[in-house]
Structures are given as C-alpha cells and as structure tokens.
C-alpha cells in the first residue's frame, strides 16, 4: 500500500506501508543504530516522534518479549528502507509488522532513508505527516505544518507512571500503590532509590537493580516533600521525551532535592538537573540518536562509545555556578554530555549508560552512583 511522508518544509518521500492504513503526524528523527529497533520502538523518549532507521534492513530478527524498554510502543511511526518479513533469530517470537500492527503503529518501507537522513541533517529534525490515505503532497505538507511543535511541549505527562511502582526482580511488583502506605521492602545491603519517571527505560531499572538498588519509580509530578517522605538513599532522574524546559514542575522538585541526597540523572533527567541549577537548554539541529556516539570522560581522558537519544542539549555557558563542572563531552560536536557538582553529590549524563540498544562502555556510571550513595551514607552516619 502506497504511503506518503511529507515534511513541514515541503519535502516528500514515497513509501509503502507494511502494516496497514494510517495517517499520523509527528517530528521525524533518525537513529543510526544498526541493531536494537525493538528497544527504540519501546523507548518512551521517542514519544511523539516518527523514527527513521538509517540501517536499511529492519525486522531481521523479529521481536521478542525481552527486548522491551517499556510496556508499549512509543514512536509515532517507523520509517525504513526495506522491511524484513522473514525474521530469523532463536529468540524471535513474532514479526515486527505484527508487533507494530497490534499497537496500531504505522511501519513504512521503501523510503530513501538516506536521503531523508541527509535532509534532516541539513534542515534539522522537523514536523512531518504520514499517510496512506492522503497521497496529495500539498495537503499532507499542510497537515505536517499544523501538527504540534516539539519545542515547549511537555510530553512527560504522556509517559510517566500514574502512581509509584516498585521495581524488583526485573519487573514491577505492583501496578501502582498509595505513596503514603509505602514501605521499602526489607533487603540486606540494598540501596533505596527513588526514580522520577519522565519516561524511564526498563534497562535503567535493570542496571540499577543489578548494582544492588531497590527502585521505587515515582510519577514526574511528585514533589520534593513526597520524595522526602520516602527517605531514599538516592534520587534517580530518568530519561524522557520532549522539551525539558516545559517540565517546570519537575525542575522545581529537583532544585529542592539537590543537596538532600545523591542524585543521578540520565538524558532528560540530566537536562532537568541543568535547568534546576539555573542553566538553559536548547534544541539541537537534528539531535544525537544512535549507538556510536563517542563521549570523552574528562576525568580519565578515556573515550566511551555511547548510546544516545536526545534532541535537546544543556548550554554549559548558561550554568553560572562554579561548582558545576563539565564531566563529559561529545567528541563529534563537543556537545555537553555530562556534568558533575563539586559540592553536593550530584551528577548527570546526557547519554544512556544503560545502552539498550548500544554499547555497554558507560555502565560504570551506575557504580559511580552507588559509590556516591555509599559516601553520602558514611557522611550522614558521621554527622
């Protein structure tokens, strides 16, 4: 079935739907990972976005129940060069097309994804409309223009959990609970971490748990007092979609939490930390999305290959507090990839140490968080 993709700047691409009839709109972004499409589909940070994979063959290994980063697909549409209808992998439990269809998400193939990527590189990530019904370029371009803007939009509300949820043994132990009734489960040597859910990827929770954390995921709208009541050993700020500046309520919460307990932020969580510290964020032209982004740890001089997915970025210049230091930079464009606070236990990174998809080079950051909590606890005891 023919499909048309129209970008807000008037560029159009022809393709074919491999999932059925659709019409939708969203921001088009590209991801350069050659593997891990299922993780990408289910990553809440892609909420509101149509994702084009630069690797042309997608669907090769099907889908399974394990490689998920949330409970559902978050992308608006998947745009590929050639869909692979015959998956082959010992873990495969179904085809990608069926998977998308079950969630009513369009999958489009036959797109010159390289041309689309090049266009986004030159013109920036932009709004687009996709349709199998309306193949009139002008009309579809107009629909693209009418769709909501990414800048200023708070997409966190759409993906955050409604009530606190306890993560243990690789899954949520409840479907939501009353925060007032909450008791940390007794477990020896385990770190109690409250994680603010801006659209968290499961693998972050898996990584934290592997390092000895018990995690209570809390809604993004939790305020500082709610968190204090939980008396966690550390606060984790998750990744998530949209413009960080629009998530004002969370920025306030974080500002209040800084100094109270060790804080570790990833991606949107990192941007929110920056905003809470008085800094500014800006939208990158086309963002960093892929699994091959080189990041230099300025403390060690070592380069790690990282998984990234962000369209916004922290402006280091805007951070006036001399105690806040740049800890990691992107070697491709020298963008801010991490900051650390010299006086209070706080650090955050723009990229994804939990990978999934992507290399595991940065998992040491979870150890760093544990060490931070350990150090803080000792300090507390001494006090």
């Amino acid at each position, binding site marked *: 079935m023919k499909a048309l993709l129209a970008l807000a700047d008037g560029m159009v691409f022809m393709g074919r739907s491999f999932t059925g009839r659709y019409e939708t709109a969203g921001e088009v972004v590209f991801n350069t990972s050659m*593997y891990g499409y299922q*993780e990408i589909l289910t990553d809440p940070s892609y909420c509101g976005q149509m994702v084009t994979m630069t690797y042309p063959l997608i669907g*090769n290994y099907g889908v399974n129940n394990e*490689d998920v980063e949330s409970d559902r697909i978050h992308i608006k549409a998947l745009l590929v060069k050639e869909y692979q209808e*015959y998956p082959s*992998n*010992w873990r495969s439990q179904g085809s990608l097309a069926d998977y998308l269809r079950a969630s009513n998400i369009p999958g489009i193939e036959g797109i010159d994804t390289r041309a689309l990527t090049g266009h986004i590189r030159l013109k920036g990530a932009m709004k687009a409309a996709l349709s199998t019904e309306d193949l009139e370029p002008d009309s579809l371009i107009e629909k693209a223009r009418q769709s909501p803007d990414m800048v200023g939009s708070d997409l966190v509300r759409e993906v955050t959990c409604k009530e606190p949820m306890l993560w243990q043994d690789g899954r949520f132990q409840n479907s939501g609970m009353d925060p007032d009734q909450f008791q940390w489960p007794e477990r020896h040597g385990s770190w109690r971490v409250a994680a603010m859910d801006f659209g968290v990827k499961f693998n972050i929770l898996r990584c934290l748990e592997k390092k000895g954390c018990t995690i209570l995921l809390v809604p993004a709208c939790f305020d500082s007092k709610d968190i204090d009541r939980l008396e966690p050993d550390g606060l984790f700020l998750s990744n998530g979609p949209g413009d960080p500046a629009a998530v004002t309520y969370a920025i306030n919460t974080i500002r209040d939490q800084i100094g109270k307990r060790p804080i570790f932020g990833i991606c949107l969580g990192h941007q929110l930390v920056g905003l809470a510290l008085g800094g500014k964020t800006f939208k990158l032209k086309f963002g960093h999305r892929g699994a*091959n982004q080189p990041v230099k740890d300025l403390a060690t001089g070592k380069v790690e290959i990282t998984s990234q997915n962000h369209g916004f970025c922290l402006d280091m210049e805007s951070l006036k507090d001399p105690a806040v230091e740049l800890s990691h930079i992107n070697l*491709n464009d020298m963008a801010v990839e991490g900051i650390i606070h010299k006086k209070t236990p706080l650090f955050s990174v723009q990229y994804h140490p939990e990978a999934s998809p992507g290399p*595991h080079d940065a998992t040491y950051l979870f150890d760093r968080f544990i060490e931070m909590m350990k150090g803080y606890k000792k300090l507390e005891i001494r006090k």
Partner: protein
Amino acid sequence: MPKRKDINKILIIGSGPIIIGQACEFDYSGTQACKALMEEGYEVVLVNSNPATIMTDPETAARTYIEPITPEIVAKIIERERPHAILPTLGGQTGLNTAVKIAETELLEKLGVEMIGASIQVIRKAEEREQFRDAMRHIGLRVPKNGIAKDIDQAREVAKRIGYPLIIRASFTLGGAGSGVAYNQVEMEDLVKTGLDASMISEIIMEESLLGWKEYELEVMRDLKDNVVIICSIENFDPMGIHTGDSITVAPAQTLTDREYQAMRDAAVAIIREIGVETGGSNIQFAINPENGEMVVIEMNPRVSRSSALASKATGFPIAKIAAKLAVGYSLDEISNDITRETFASFEPTLDYCVVKIPRWTFEKFPGAEDMLTTSMKSVGETMAIGRTFKEALQKAIRSLEIGKFCLGSDTPRSRESGLKIHEIEKGLINPNSERIFHIYAALEQGMTLERIYKLTRIDPWFLFHIRQIHDMEKQLGHLAQKGLGPDKWDIEFLKKVKEYGFSDMLLANIFDVDELAIRRIRISNGIKPVYKLVDTCAAEFEAYTPYYYSTYEQENEICFSQKRKVVILGGGPNRIGQGIEFDYCCVHASFTLKEMGIESIIINSNPETVSTDYDISDKLYFEPLTREDVLNIVEQEKPEGIITQFGGQTPLNISASLEEAGITILGTSPDSINRAEDRDHFQCLLKKLDIKQPENGIAVDKKEAILIAEKIGYPVLVRPSFVLGGRAMEIVYDKEDLEVYMETAVKVSPGKPILIDRFLEDATEIDVDAISDGEDTIIGGIMEHIEEAGIHSGDSACVLPSISLSRKILEQIKGHTKTIARELNVKGLMNIQYAVKEGIVYVLEVNPRASRTVPFVSKATGVPLVKLATKVIMGKRLKDLGLVQDVTHSYICCKESAFPFARFPNVDTILGPEMRSTGEVMGIDSSFGLAFAKSQLAVGQKLPLSGTVFISVKDKDKKALPDIAAMLHDSGFKIVATGGTSAFLSDHRIPNRQVNKVRQGRPHIVDMIKNREIDLIINTTSNKKTISESCSIRRAAVAFDIPYSTTIAGARAVSMAIKSMIEGEFGVKTIQEYHG
C-alpha cells in the same frame, strides 16, 4: 597522547608474494601504513619481496628492500638499517611470523629495536592455541572444546576426549593450511600428519566441531589509552566449517539483536584487552549456536587481516592507516576521520547499506582438486558489492565475480544448475563448494522449501529467504515473458522494483530475448536510472568529503560533479589466477598520474583487497561491478572525456569494444588495434605484412579439423580455446591420441568455439618484452628471458632481466620487431610481446597491446615508471617530450619467480605447463644471476640446500643438458641419487650417483627416501602422460615435505647455479633506491 618522538626509523615487514590466504589486502594495508608513517615524518624502511605492489614503489617508503622475507635476510636488513622499531602487524601472517622469529634471537635486544603494535608476548598469546584458550577462560569466555597435540599419540588421546566430528588445525600457518574436519579416526590420523607438517611449530589443535553454527567476525581497534572501538561486524553467510576466506560474508551482522550483538562486542573488548594488543586492529571470530545463542570464541588475529581490508572498504574506516598511527602513540580521539573531517577516529562506523563479499575460486585450474570448501582456504580472490538491500548487494557481487553470471538468476540461456537432478542439488547443498549459492537457487527452482535448504546447508533462513525473493521475482519475469509482456509494457514501479532487486539488464535481455541495450533504452526512457550513494562511515549523520560511491535504485543522487577534465580507469575486478595485483598496481599508477596532470581520475573496481579501491587513490571511487551496464551507468553520469581500459587486465578489455560501440571514447590504443592483435586471422595478416615469423598454426572447431591441422604442422602442438586468460585449458599435445582426447573435452565445454592449434617450439627460449609507445616512438622497457623453456605459461615461469643468454643480434631483432609491431598497431600506451627464440630464429607468440603482468616487475627492476609514462602518452603526450628516448638498461640482475598454491590442493600435480597456476610473484635482485635467482627461490619459500642429496630423474630429451647440471651439483658437494635411466646416463658421464627405485619398481623407493627426509633437492622432468602420472607422487611428496624441486631442466640449471653462487658468495641487501641510484 601525541606521536612518539623517541623513535624515528620504523621497519615494516610486508607479506611477500600473493598466495592463497595472503593476497593484495596486505599491499593495501602496508601501503596505507607506510603513507601514514611517512606523513608523520617517520623514516620508513620496508621489506617485501613482491614487486607487483604499490608498497614497494620507491616513493612509498624511504628505503625499500625488495628482498626475501626470511628471518635471516630481514635480520641483515635490521643490522644494516638499525631501525628504532619494527611494526609487524601489517604484513599478514608472513610479516608477523618473520618478526616473531627475529624477536626470538637476541638481535632486537642487542640493537635496541622495539616491536610496536604487538609485542612477541602478545602475538604468542593470541596465536598459540593453548595460551589463547587459557586467556579466554580467564575472562570467562568459552572456546570450543579442544586439545593440543604435538604427535599422533597425543592426537589420539585428545580425539577420544572431544569425540567426532572434530576439527584439526595447525598452529602458526597461513590461512588455515593444514586444517580439516575429521569424521572418523582414519581421517583424523591423516589430517594430524599434514597438520603437524604445515605448522611452523609442529603443533596441531583439535577442536570440537561447530559445524552448522553461525559464524561472526568483529574488527576491533585499541589505542594506548585503552580506548576500544569496533569498526565492523561481519556475519558469514556460510556456517562454521568453512574457512572465513572461503565464506560469503555480509556486513554488518544481520540476524543478531542488540542484546546479542552487544554481548559479542563486550567479549571482543575483553579479548583485545586480555590478549594485550596495545595498539592497532585485531580480528576476532565468534561462533553462535543457532538453537540457543550460545557463543564461543574461535580465534583472534592480533594484526591487520583480510577481513580488516574488507571491513575498511565496507565501512570507509581506514583500519591499517589508523593502526599505524596508533602504533606510534596517537590515540583514537587524536586522529581525524578523513571522511567527515569534523569528527575523530574514536567512534564506531555505522552503515546504511549492506555489503556482500563473495570469494573467487579457480578449481578449474587444478584438475584433481575436489571442489569442496573446508577450513583450509582455497579461494584466490574476492569481490565485494554494496547495495541498499541484501538482495541488491548479493546480485551485484555475483555480477562482480566475472564468472559469466550477471545475476543470481539463470541469466545464461539456461544455466548449468537448471539441468541438475535433485540428488545432485542436495549433494551440492550438503557439501560446501564454490557453486553452493547456485545450488540453492537450483533447489528453489525445483521447489525445495527453505526449511529443507536450511537443514542441508545450515545457512541462516534469513539469507535463504532473500534468495527466494530473487527467485520468485525471476519466476514472475518468466511468466511475463511467456505472455509476451516485455519491460516496455510494464508499470514503471515494477521495472524499478526489478532493478531494486539487483537484476541486470543482461538478465532481462535473456529472459525477454532482446538485446541488453534495448532493455537499457526502455529503462532510461522511463527514468529508471541508478543513483549513487556515499560510503561515509556515519550513515549521513555528518557531511562526507570523500567521494566513495556505490549505485542503487532510489530517490536521491549524491554524486558531486566537477567541471574538471576527467577520465575513468577500469580496474581488474577480483583476483584470479592470471589477473591479480599487477593490474591493480597499474590502475593505481594511472590514477596518480592523472591526478598529477590535473585530470580528475575516476576508478571503477569491485575488489576490496586492493589499493585502487582505497578512497584516497583516485579523485572518485565507484565500488561497482565491471560490466558494461554498470560502467555505462557511471559514464553517463560523469561524462568523462574517455576511459582507460589497458591497465586492468582482461576484465576491462573484454568490455572495451562494447563500450566503444555504446559511444564511449576508449583512450590509448584503440579497441580495433587490440582486436587486430587478439584475433588470429588479423594477427596473422599483420605479421605477414611485417614479415615477422610466428609458429605455424591453424584453427579448428572439431576433432577432424584439428587432426588435419596438427598433421600439417607436425607434433607436438599447443592447443587452446580462443580468447582465454592465463592459459586456461591450454595444453601441449604430443600425438594424435592426446589431441583427440583434448578436442573431445574442449568441444564439450564450449561447443562451436574455435580451438587454436600452434606448432609447439620445443626447447625454445621464451622472451617477454614490455614496451611503451606513443604511436610513433616505441621504447623498450625490458626484455625478460624466461628461465623455463617456451611451453610453460609465461605467468608461471621464472625470468631474468636483463637477458643472460641471448646474443646482441637476437636482442636487436626483438627490439626491432617490437617497434615495428607497435607502430603498425598504432599502440598508445603499453604493449607486451612474447617471443620464442629457437635455433637463432625469433618467433612472435603473442602480442598484447595493454599492460602486462610483468609491468610492475620491469618498473621495479629498472626504476622507470612505465605506467606513469604510458598514462601520459594515453593522454596525448609524446615520449620524447617526457624525456624517454632510450631503451632502458641496468647493470644488476633481477629475477622473477612465481609462487604456487600447490600445498592447498592435495592430489594436484605440480608439473608446470601451458596453463597458468601461480598466484603471485617475487623478485630477487643481486649482482649475479646465481644470487638473484637464489633470492627469488628463497622468497617463494624454496629453501635451496647448500649440501645434502639431490634426486634426479629426467626425460630423455633433457639428458643432453644434464651432465653440466649434475656436475655442478656434484662439485658443490651434493650426493646424487637417480632412477634407472638417469642413473645409467650419469654413470656414463662419470658423474657419481646412486640408483634408487621408481615408485613402481618396489620399495624402498624414492618417495620413501623423501619421507625419510633423505632428499634435499628434487629435479624431475617428464614428458608424456604416462610418466607424468607415474612420477606425480614424487612431486607431491616434495610439496608435502617442503623440499625444493624443479620440474624443468632449465629450472634445474638455474637452481644449480643459484646453489653454487650461495656456496661461493653471500647475499647482499640493498634498497631499490640505491639500485636505481
């Protein structure tokens, strides 16, 4: 870390002659390394015995030794040069092994020479299986169950522990020589014996068989700061059990989820750290159980490898160049990415296309060798293709193989596979062989299910499904053809889809029974033209500056057109016997020259192992098949002023007439002149007109005609099919009976095709001349005298430059003929003529108005850059304006010797003949013929003895030359043993010798002596079929036991002279820069 300042002079060891398992990829890597280090201001000293390489060009390194790569000679070079460091990881296994051998002596320590890139400890840890296994266990990775044996008893014990089937490999070998799968004890014991022999350290490893597991490779790089990146993942189409060099491979890996890929990546990172490769590239191979994902580590190469060359071309990331820079202290984040300019080498390339590599085999050259793929590599070359889909890349790769197939489909009127019976197809699926991919296609034609094909081949169904899609599409095309619905009646979208599937115009032309160009016209008139995409390491995330293109059928065309004058150079395609690195050398030089002249050079080639497909060799690189369709597509976009076809060997020549027909300008010698030289009738007229002799000859299409002609000319005759490369199916026939047999097989192979019959000039001296002409003036580049007599393929015989035995008068005559022919053919560029001299008469055997295989050898010997001059001539310059007015002469002696792959093909006779079988060549330079020839022997691994016992058995015709040779050996202190006739003959000439039994005369016989290592040199010449087959076991034993041998009397004389010179004098080592003075 900035580059090291404490070292300045660095020795790079090359890989020597092209052999199976070590081809031009090491010229590519070595050249990159030399260039990178020279750019950094280091003084690079290079040793490599292979003259046909770009790395041995006098400009590539500061000091270049074209000398044998043996520990002794390299030690001499080290003593003379006193380098600060050795970089051993860029010259393949040869470079690595030689460095290890030298490091084992105290020389490096004594002179304070450091090994950079990989230390001897690291090399051992990676290469010695026991150490490697322990290292893997240490980091929690599993290697296949295995054991090491140093003798047969140990082997039996290990086998009992592992069980059958099991895999046997020799430690420290080239490309898995001495490896195989044993299904039972008998096979095991056989393989153990060959393995122990093949191993440099007499050690074999026995492993649990992982037949049917999936095979993967990762290319890993590490720097001194311990940064590690993965450059490329490769998934083998063929499962475990087939050497990766013989596997079809695909990049990136296709059937792994991120979770599985990352587990492999983590393992690779852990391995490179544990083994301790400090800087540079490594190749790590993994196997994965398709049932449950269990992963085992197969092996690691702590050096740049064939796969790294492939990975470099597949990703655009120049592994060898970066490896060289890392070795001198840079870290990955300090080296910029040439392609994007703004980013650094510390990243992992991401692909937005699919790459398929297919090996090129030449089993047809080795009658007696079974077309079966095992863990011992057999292919002589490879081709790579890039497409936006696997189907497109696969179809392009098949086209690029140049095996007469233009697609996977039955593009020839009805391909051979179609006639196969189901049990033959199944056999072809079960037993891996060079045609297996076509067997899969044939199986689909017969309706076999994917499940069944998977069961028989263990090739992942993901790949098989794509082949089925191609098959289904072809079937659909067939239906359309039956209905008379040609492409002109199709929906444009469907035509586009057919092209997206990689189908060639040729295939469509065959299916619809029209001319290829007619399909092209329909296509173009419908606007279905390929677009060209960039290989940019980053999937378009950053702007790319290197013009490295591939074609596809899609929306956006990325070609950046310039307004400069431009010229296209057609490359040589995949290496094969008869067409290899020599032609790549020529193309590279042509490209350099065009650039120098300010003309944009555009290279089209499909061989990932080459220097020519490096993106900084030309102004533009198109990685594409070399068929008319693919070339026309590019030319129509680029609109160059012309195409140069004379440097890429037979490949471009084969299509040059059809390109000219399509309106393309062929620069240099015209296709018409080429035709005059290649067409028998025209050629005969030409020689008659010029009053130049050629052996009497005739053409026959059937047996009767052939016999008539042969009787007129007189036996022996040389027979061959017309228009062949490398003497394919060429034979010397001594009598009517043999001629009948030959004609029967030849007619069967290509019915209706003419067979050429020439008088065979027995005992004639063969001469090769390379010359350059501008149409008026012709300058002789070199006159090479073959060591072996005429009748041995010129690519297989050794030769010496300058000639050592021809009289001045003969030489003048040869020069005269050459110039006359060049003028008559209006040659513009290079030309090669083969002559035979018999009893003072000069005959012309063959004229090739194009670059020949010997051009790089002549250029290296004389210091005259023939290709560079030829390119200028092609572009309109006159020789006298270029300052080339005199024929080239020099005072030292250069010998060329050929390297043969016989060790890879058990049961194949090693006797030389008119069919070319060598894969590569070396050059020996010294002050005398004896020493130069001795060096050439040493360089191809013939370890000539200085004392011991020589076995001699020669045919009657050779006996008159024997006394001199035998006396020389006797005087040099050799004991002589000989079979009956030869022994009696020697005794008659008072040369002391001992008689030994022929094999059929009872034991102990000569083969027993060889096996007992009582023989140090073998001279064995034979004439007719019976004696040839009778003595074959002697020659095979010589190969198996690595005993130097000669199968011609002329070769034997040269060997004796070499031994005498080695006893009397010593090798000197000298750079070619010094020789050229």
